[in-house]
């Protein structure tokens, strides 16, 4: 039985061959501890890490590679951004389709400082949805720009414009966006961008990024060794070391760099077109099946239910046919409440550019048997 992997919104699989080649080369030939020594392996690792910063900077169109900080994943990145930005009582605006990677750190600062939160309706353009929520004590917008359940994408240009008009800094969760769609931080310089490396960017698990368009100051989440300024008991003020305490995950970062290089060579607009084509194809096939209720389709994500069956049961049955999809609530409680699927969840098939029409046919054939 052929395995058909359609869970790329959780983590992409397989990784492109150049990612695996460089990962192997890194671990076998040059993986020293960057920033701690000046021997050849330490410097070779440091050089590859800097090269990855340059590649991510190119992907986002920013001129300062040192504004790319590496993290373990998007959750880690969002914890750095949210807990670093909020250290007192204030009001924050977020969306109604967030992932727990954002909801939970935001809830933590609510408990800690008495922060209050308003959620804007993601079905309404940000320029209309956000201004009515602003209060005198509103200090920040922190929001996803693409749903991990429905594939809905928020208008980033409108979001950026409204944030600037209101004078509010913006932190975005680009977990399902960066690597799928163009994010031009010269045109829309969001203050902080958080993203995983192991999803659309094709790195391995253990990689993520916090990207600063400018010099938006954040308190540190984790303190520790930085390889410099030893007698200072505080973390350095300079990016990226300020947010990279301890030994960084060189193999994961190197894999992320090769993943980004792969995307840049493929072309981001070609990625977008390919995902759009595959998503439309899957949507068309699923719409032809009686008993399948489509809940959302876009940006490489197709979510659906089969009759009134619990989504995890459907995902389990599809698994028996070799189809890897995700059932349940996708760590996105508000989205499922909004969809009315808080009890049975949804089956999510999520695509990467490495999927083919044959994979979609396999999903279609398996669903016909349920």
């Amino acid at each position: 039985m052929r395995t058909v992997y359609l869970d790329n919104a959780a983590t992409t699989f397989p990784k492109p061959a150049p990612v695996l080649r460089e990962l192997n080369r890194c671990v076998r030939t040059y993986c020293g501890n960057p920033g701690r020594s000046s021997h050849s392996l330490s410097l070779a690792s440091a050089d590859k890490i800097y090269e990855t910063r340059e590649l991510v900077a190119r992907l986002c169109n920013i001129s300062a590679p040192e504004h790319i900080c590496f993290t373990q994943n998007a959750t880690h990145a969002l914890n750095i951004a949210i807990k670093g930005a909020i250290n007192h009582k204030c009001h924050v605006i977020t969306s109604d389709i967030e992932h727990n990677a954002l909801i939970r750190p935001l809830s933590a600062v609510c408990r800690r400082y008495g922060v209050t939160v308003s959620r804007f309706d993601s079905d309404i353009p940000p320029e209309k949805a956000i201004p009515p929520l602003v209060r005198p004590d509103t200090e920040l917008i922190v929001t996803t720009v693409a749903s991990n359940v429905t594939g809905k994408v928020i208008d980033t240009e409108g979001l950026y414009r409204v944030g600037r008009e209101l004078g509010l800094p913006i932190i975005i969760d680009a977990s399902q966006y960066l690597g799928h769609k163009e994010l031009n931080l010269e045109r829309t310089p969001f203050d902080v961008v958080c993203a995983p490396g192991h999803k659309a960017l094709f790195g391995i698990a253990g990689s993520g990024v916090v990207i600063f368009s400018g010099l938006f100051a954040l308190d540190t989440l984790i303190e520790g060794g930085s390889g410099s300024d030893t007698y200072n008991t505080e973390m350095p003020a300079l990016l990226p070391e300020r947010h990279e305490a301890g030994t960084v995950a060189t193999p994961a970062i190197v894999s992320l760099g090769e993943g980004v290089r792969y995307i840049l060579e493929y072309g981001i607009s070609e990625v977008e077109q390919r995902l759009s084509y595959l998503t439309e194809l899957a949507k068309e096939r699923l719409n032809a099946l009686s008993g399948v209720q489509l809940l959302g389709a876009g940006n490489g994500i197709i979510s659906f239910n089969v009759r009134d069956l619990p989504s995890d049961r459907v995902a389990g049955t599809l698994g028996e046919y070799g189809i890897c999809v995700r059932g349940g609530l996708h760590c996105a409680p508000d989205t499922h409440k909004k969809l009315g699927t808080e009890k049975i969840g949804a089956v999510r098939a999520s695509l990467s550019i490495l999927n083919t029409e044959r994979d979609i046919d396999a999903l279609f054939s398996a669903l016909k048997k349920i």
Partner: protein
Amino acid sequence: MNSAIITLGSLTYATKARRLFTKNGIDARTVKLSEAADGGCTHGIEIKKSDLYSAVAILREAGVQYSLYRG
């Protein structure tokens, strides 16, 4: 000594500087220095003395902060 050392604020900036120098035809190598700054460990770039003016111009152009440890 025929070499000069420029110190940078962090390894990332040292790597940035070295890559800029190499791109501009200046031989450069990263060195770790614990004796160069009061704060403890720091990183620098060792270059030929004859390349110092060009190197400094490159860093200024790129907006990279530096100091001269051994000029």
